[in-house]
């Protein structure tokens, strides 16, 4: 009973600290529950959508020319497969949505069993039967995200011979295979009549030209035998070994990779935010530690009195534990409570990235597990921090308590008349710097995170930085209409160089080839010396050389000097690995070789060119000139955003906003809490200053300036951490998208903005929290 009485009294007496702990824990618990629920829902909804549409364990795309009944039968008869569905499709490399294209392939198919559409509001499904009409096209949501298009917008599909098929976007579909915004390939549905018309054209085009703009393909949905328990990539490897189907395909999509790529952005966001939450939890512990130790200092006399009245150190510690744990528990419950409406409101936050509606179930189990672990750790922490209670001597405590004793310090700063408030504030900091270690650490953590988020944003917004991580940042795209000779390409380059020098030129194609039996993305470059971001070794200059990414090297256990076998269709050749490079294509699972090297496995040409210009301002003019002079050979267009990082920029913006908002909230709560304690500790000094003629305004300013100094000091520590660790931290995050080595790019704003935000918050919040100074009366100094 006496414990409850004391706990109640303490909470009533120290409402500020109590509310702050409740608030911090509520934020943590709300955020953790929200983030885990979002992740869990995305995982489960995508899995459920996959099960619902049941597209199989592996989808293989094979050109009609390379498809044979023999191959299909082989696959059907494999002991690894349960069933195989051969769906006719049309591949287009030249489609435009509202006159924009990203150059990725579109696979059009007729309406079939896999068709499930969203309503116009994209918050539910169309229940009625849909019959696709002529001129309509249905896309996955990822297309809407990437092209910012809507129902009713125009889509044009071209052939090499200038035929144009115009479609209107009739709606968006549930598409767990290629629906994610990060997946370049997209499937779309058109009417049977439109499909057949295009298919006939594609056939004609193929007869005249090996690599047409549209071509007939087969989308082979392969279902794994129930007796097999392989992962989908193992299944692909084993099936290819047995039947060779992947070698004949120009692409394949195993279930696990589709799910991985669809959830890529979600995983990056949730992993980054959970890491941030973990650090915020550390911040909460620091704040609690500060609160407990200053609380013991402030209540030193009272604790001595309690001891003299027979309270054991165990009982006193129990009071502290109950008090803090009650605050934590309350915060956790409030956080859980707020997570429910927050989640229901924002459950489809990642819809534009995954293209799948969330089921809206909160992940209480995993959240509770994490929060309970934190709760248990905090019990140990409070026990540890309250160890000082044992050392309180009743006699010493009662005879005047334990006031802060200041001695000369090397850090002692001069008090000057000119800058009296700043110099006094600085003295208050330097004369008791130990008291501010915790808050300095907190500031440095917040600033570190804010700077890291800024640096991440810089990387994705700077052409040089993007090139350093293997991005091809081009201002002009060139689509070849036919195979071009070196002379023809030189003529085209000359058109551009009339305006501005070309800093990098790339002639390339991306396609899947089998590397040691694993279907892997390959970048084939006509000019291999231009392969970007070689981090080790050298470019593949001879026809038996390749470079691989270090992520691929890790995954396939390969290194420089190793020999690999690359196969395509029925051709196969050996190559030596000459170096490592970086690329975000296929999240880093990519290798590169020269066109001469590719010719050894039957690939004769590349069909895409890209120019990075010295002066991007001439891109539009140069592209127009190319089209005018060489329109029969190529189609050129200028690229307004060099480097296609829109989707990544979006997530970085989300992460940045969340980190900044949480940092500001934490800064406000931490400052408020520390200010309250500091105010109690210094109430006496405040009275003295007032008696000496200082006004409340001056003292509030001093108080705020002191916290400004602390925030500047902490920010500098954060800056050092950032210089030392941000690159490493970002590399860990970007590894998820295929980048393992980054060149950190700083701008003045990288440092200035986080420091300004934090320092401004500390100053303002400290000034606001110091309003109680107004109520300190000089009369309090009187000894009656």
């Amino acid at each position, binding site marked *: 009973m006496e414990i409850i009485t004391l706990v109640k009294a303490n909470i009533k007496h120290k409402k500020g600290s109590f509310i702050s702990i409740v608030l911090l824990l509520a934020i943590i618990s709300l955020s953790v529950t929200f983030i885990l629920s979002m992740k869990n829902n995305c995982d489960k909804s995508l899995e459920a959508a996959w099960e619902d549409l049941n597209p199989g364990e592996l989808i293989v795309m094979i050109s009609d020319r390379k498809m044979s009944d023999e191959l299909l039968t082989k696959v059907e008869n494999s002991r690894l497969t349960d069933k195989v569905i051969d769906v006719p499709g049309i591949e287009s490399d030249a489609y435009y949505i509202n006159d924009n294209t990203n150059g990725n392939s579109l696979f059009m198919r007729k309406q079939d069993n896999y068709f499930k559409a969203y309503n116009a509001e994209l918050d539910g499904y169309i229940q009625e039967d849909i019959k696709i009409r002529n001129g309509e096209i249905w896309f996955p949501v990822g297309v809407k995200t990437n092209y910012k298009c809507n129902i009713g917008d125009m889509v044009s599909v071209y052939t090499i011979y200038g035929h144009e098929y115009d479609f209107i976007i009739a709606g968006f579909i549930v598409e767990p295979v290629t629906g994610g915004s990060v997946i370049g390939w997209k499937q779309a549905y058109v009417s049977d009549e439109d499909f057949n018309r295009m298919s006939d054209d594609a056939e004609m085009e193929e007869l005249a030209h090996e690599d047409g703009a549209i071509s007939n393909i087969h989308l082979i949905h392969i279902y794994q035998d129930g007796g097999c328990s392989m992962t989908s990539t193992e299944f692909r490897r084993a099936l290819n070994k047995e039947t060779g189907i992947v070698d004949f395909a120009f692409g394949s999509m195993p279930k696990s990779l589709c799910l991985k790529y669809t959830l890529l952005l979600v995983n990056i966001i949730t992993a980054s935010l959970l890491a941030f939450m973990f650090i915020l939890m550390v911040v909460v512990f620091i704040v609690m530690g500060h609160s407990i130790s200053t609380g013991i200092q402030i209540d030193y006399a009272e604790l001595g009195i309690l001891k003299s009245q027979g309270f054991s150190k165990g009982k006193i510690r129990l009071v502290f534990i109950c008090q803090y744990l009650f605050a934590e528990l309350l915060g956790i419950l409030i956080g859980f409570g707020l997570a429910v409406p927050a989640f229901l409101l924002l459950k489809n936050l990642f819809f534009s990235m995954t293209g799948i509606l969330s089921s809206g179930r909160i992940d209480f189990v995993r959240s509770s597990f994490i929060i309970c672990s934190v709760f248990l750790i905090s019990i140990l922490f409070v026990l540890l921090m309250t160890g000082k209670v044992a050392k309180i001597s009743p006699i010493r405590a009662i005879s005047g308590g334990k*006031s802060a*004793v200041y001695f000369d310090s090397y850090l002692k700063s001069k008090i000057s008349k*000119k800058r009296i408030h700043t110099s006094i504030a600085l*003295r208050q900091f330097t004369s008791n710097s130990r008291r501010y270690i915790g808050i300095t650490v907190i500031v440095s953590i917040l600033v570190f995170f804010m700077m890291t988020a800024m640096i991440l944003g810089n990387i994705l917004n700077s052409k040089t930085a993007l090139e350093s991580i293997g991005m091809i940042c081009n201002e002009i795209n060139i689509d070849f209409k036919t195979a071009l000779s070196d002379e023809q390409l030189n003529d085209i380059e000359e058109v551009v160089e009339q305006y501005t020098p070309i800093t990098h030129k790339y002639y390339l194609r991306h396609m899947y080839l089998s590397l040691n039996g694993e279907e892997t993305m390959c970048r084939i470059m006509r000019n291999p010396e231009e392969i970007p971001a070689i981090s080790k070794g050298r470019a593949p200059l001879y026809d038996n050389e390749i470079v691989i990414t270090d992520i691929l090297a890790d995954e396939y256990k390969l290194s420089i000097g190793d020999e690999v076998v690359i196969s395509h269709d029925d051709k196969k050749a050996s190559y030596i690995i000459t170096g490592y490079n970086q690329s975000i294509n296929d999240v880093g699972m990519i290798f590169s070789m020269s066109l001469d090297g590719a010719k050894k496995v039957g690939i004769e040409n590349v069909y895409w060119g890209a120019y990075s210009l010295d002066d991007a301002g001439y891109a539009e003019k140069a592209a127009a000139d190319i089209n005018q002079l060489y329109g029969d050979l190529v189609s050129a267009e200028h690229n307004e955003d060099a480097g296609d990082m829109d989707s990544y920029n979006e997530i970085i913006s989300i992460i940045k906003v969340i980190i900044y908002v949480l940092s500001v909230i934490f800064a406000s709560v931490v400052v408020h809490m520390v200010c309250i304690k500091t105010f109690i500790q210094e109430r006496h000094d405040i009275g003295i200053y007032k008696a*000496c003629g200082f*006004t409340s305004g*001056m003292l509030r300013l001093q108080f705020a300036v002191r916290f400004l100094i602390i925030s500047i000091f902490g920010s500098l520590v954060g800056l050092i951490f950032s210089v030392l660790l941000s690159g490493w931290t970002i590399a860990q995050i970007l590894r998820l998208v295929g980048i393992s080595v980054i060149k950190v790019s700083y701008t003045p704003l990288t440092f200035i903005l986080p420091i300004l935000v934090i320092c401004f918050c500390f100053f303002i919040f400290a000034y606001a929290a110091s309003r109680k100074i107004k109520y300190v009366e000089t009369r309090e100094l009187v000894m009656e």
Partner: protein
Amino acid sequence: MKEKILSAQDLSKSFAHNGEQLHILSHIDLELYEGDFTVIMGASGSGKSTLLYALSGMDRATAGKVIYKGMDIVTLDEKKLSVLRHGDFGFVFQQMHLIGNLSLFENIVVPGYLNKTVSASDINARAEKLLSQMGIEHVKTHMPSQVSGGEQQRCAIARAVINTPKLLFADEPTGALNRKNTKEVLNLLTELNQSGQSILMVTHDLRAALRANRLLYLEDGKIIGELTLPPYHDEDKKSRETQVNAWLSSMEW
């Protein structure tokens, strides 16, 4: 004829306690004169400190006026009061109340730095002079926790007079000191008074009261007695003591 520097008119101070009004000061009329060393005495709880704080503007009276230079300081806002505190008034507390993280020298100069009409070098020079006058020059760079109570109180007095106040208020300045330090502090106050400093001091201590040339006796928030003495000299200490003792006896002290 001495010049009046501060006057209280019908000054009252009361608190509400459990729905009841407690009258600490009741309709006090008082005038303080330039150059006087005035002492307020009285039993515990008689309202001595409350009167001192009300007169100095550290606390606000509930009713009445405190007139200084034609202004009623009861109605002054915080900004104007702060100007009085670092300009015209000085204050010495019983518990010294030095700022713990400032050295003795800095404790003295900080209120001086608030004074915009005097340069920093002048303040520093005056502080050095006061340190020497107070006999604490040798510990000027020490922190308060590193010096004795007497040295702390001498520092507090130097701080109170750094801006050459018109009136120095002292609330039991020797209350926390031993015999030796008490004597030293009283000598300092007497010296200050002899150099023209007007002082209003609250004390219990007869030795302190002997230094005054005017004694007021407070009982239940009212001034019930006043004694005027010639300026203090060590030689007539004995006769002053007899005179003050007799007066205090008549006040039933």
